[in-house]
């Protein structure tokens, strides 16, 4: 029987159009960021003018710095706690309140951000906490640790358990078996989880708007208030810089997951 090609012309067309749809707008934004003209849509030749403008804009620089600090801090805490949660879910068998536990971990993944943001703000107000760096960091940690938990858990689930069991049969204490056998095997997923948490935190507008205080705006909050007033070429430059930063993060994360897939099945679901 003739081997029929599984890939039809329709398949190729839908893939090509789909990917073009996903990438063209971002590409156009990057190109316009180098536009010399003040009018965003009139091409006036290549220029770095808007990048200079950004680096001279104190408020924007301060907001960027705030965002970066929050992203690093919250991603780090989220990775620690999220990994623990993943271990508990995939190795802990049954424990009291497990259903509630997994429910609390999966719900924030899809919970509308306005609800998460509002509820955390009301908590901070009730606790009389001063709103700023730490409140935003806590809020972002709460959201991103769930993503970390899912990524790490799926890696733990695909792991061959006999390795851990062998280590323990040979007399390793459970904690030691985890640290010396399991942890190195899931390390790439943990790295990928950190990266995901970092970019999610850098990206968030809604939750940060609710939980931050006066005078400590994050970069998305600043961008949002500028965009509401109209399109400014400087925003194109800032967005391009953020995209560049995230691209670096993605390259590192994909190297990590390549490392992970060379050791076994591919892990990251996201």
């Amino acid at each position, binding site marked *: 029987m003739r081997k029929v090609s*599984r*890939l039809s012309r*329709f*398949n190729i067309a839908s893939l090509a159009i*789909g*990917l073009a*749809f*996903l*990438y063209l*707008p*971002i590409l156009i*934004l990057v190109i316009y960021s180098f536009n010399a003209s003040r009018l*965003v*849509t009139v091409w006036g030749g290549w220029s770095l003018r808007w990048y200079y403008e950004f680096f001279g804009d104190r408020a924007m620089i301060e907001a960027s710095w705030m965002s970066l600090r929050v992203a690093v801090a919250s991603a780090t805490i989220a990775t620690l*706690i999220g990994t*623990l*949660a993943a271990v508990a879910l995939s*190795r*802990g*068998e049954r424990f009291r309140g497990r259903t509630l*536990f997994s429910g*609390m*971990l999966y*719900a924030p*993944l*899809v*919970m*509308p951000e*306005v*609800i998460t943001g*509002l*509820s*955390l703000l*009301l*908590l901070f107000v009730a606790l009389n906490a001063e709103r700023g760096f730490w409140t935003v960091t*806590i809020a972002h*940690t*709460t959201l991103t640790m769930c993503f970390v938990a899912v990524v790490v*858990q799926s890696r733990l*689930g695909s792991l061959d358990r006999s390795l851990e*069991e062998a280590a*323990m049969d040979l007399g390793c204490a*459970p*904690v030691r078996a*985890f640290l010396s056998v399991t942890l190195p095997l899931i390390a790439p997923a943990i790295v990928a989880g950190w990266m995901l948490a970092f*970019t999610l935190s*850098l*990206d968030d507008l809604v939750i940060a*708007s*609710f939980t931050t205080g006066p005078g400590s705006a994050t970069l998305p909050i600043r*961008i*949002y208030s500028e*965009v509401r007033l109209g*399109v400014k070429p400087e*925003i*194109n430059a800032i967005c391009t810089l*953020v*995209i560049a930063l995230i691209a670096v993060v993605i390259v590192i994360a*994909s190297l990590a997951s390549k490392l992970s897939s060379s050791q076994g099945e591919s892990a990251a*679901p996201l």
Partner: protein
Amino acid sequence: MSARRIFARPARFAAIAPYVWMVLFFLVPFGFVLKISLSQTAIAQPPYEPVFDLTAGWTAIRAAFAALGIDNFKLIASDDLYVFAYLRSLTVAVTATALLLLIGYPIAYGMARLPKRWQAVAMVLVIVPFWTSFLIRIYAWINILQHDGLLNQILLALHLVREPVVWLSTDTAMYIGIVYSYLPFMILPLYATLAKMEPALEEAAGDLGAPPWQVFWLVTFPLSLPGVGAGVLLCFIPIVGEFVIPDLLAGSNSLMIGQTLWLEFFTNKDWPVASSAAIVLLVVLLLPLLLYERLQRRQLEQR
């Protein structure tokens, strides 16, 4: 004793820190939302009363409880603004999810039929935009859709339209933005089920004489239903509460519930009404949320 069981005990201890964290910063805050949704608006800081003060003694707390009421919910149910906002949120979410399914399915299907090597590349290509900032992607569309933006320039140059078309502040722009932002969420679960499907099933149906559309409709699509369910929930739930996309791309004459909540909170400073709106939103989403949680848990535990 099996090694698996020895491991279980320390693993359970690992749950303590994340458990405490999530109870404190996820569950408890909902208690506050519920409580404040039952409070009265007040011109004060914080702008609601009664404020519980545990030091004020038992009678004061009892009085505070007595002051709670469901007035805010009555207000929401009787105010057209809110009723319309909820209806609009649901309509937008249903329409957008249907569009996403229609657009995402062919792409996921194409991915699943690529040679194995290329599948991995395609998956990375679909995931990467998910990593780039949400706000930036919406902003990219404002660039394109504005009055003298690229889209109008192209349409004018091709003589398809005589005058620039108004794209921004329309529902069309909002749907473009939503589809653009949520497409990876729809494609990935669809692709995951389609890629796992046994190609022999489709081939067998074809060999038995079914035309391609029948193969698709009677074999492929029913088998991909778990992926469809996951993709639909993953998109529908957050879209109902979406704020940024309708705020930046849609017109301001009809609001979604996420926007009214934001407005009540930041502009009107009416925290109790905003909290009540959040509670109602949560109730609307409870069923899809529970479905989603079950799906997610089953999927991860099956591995």
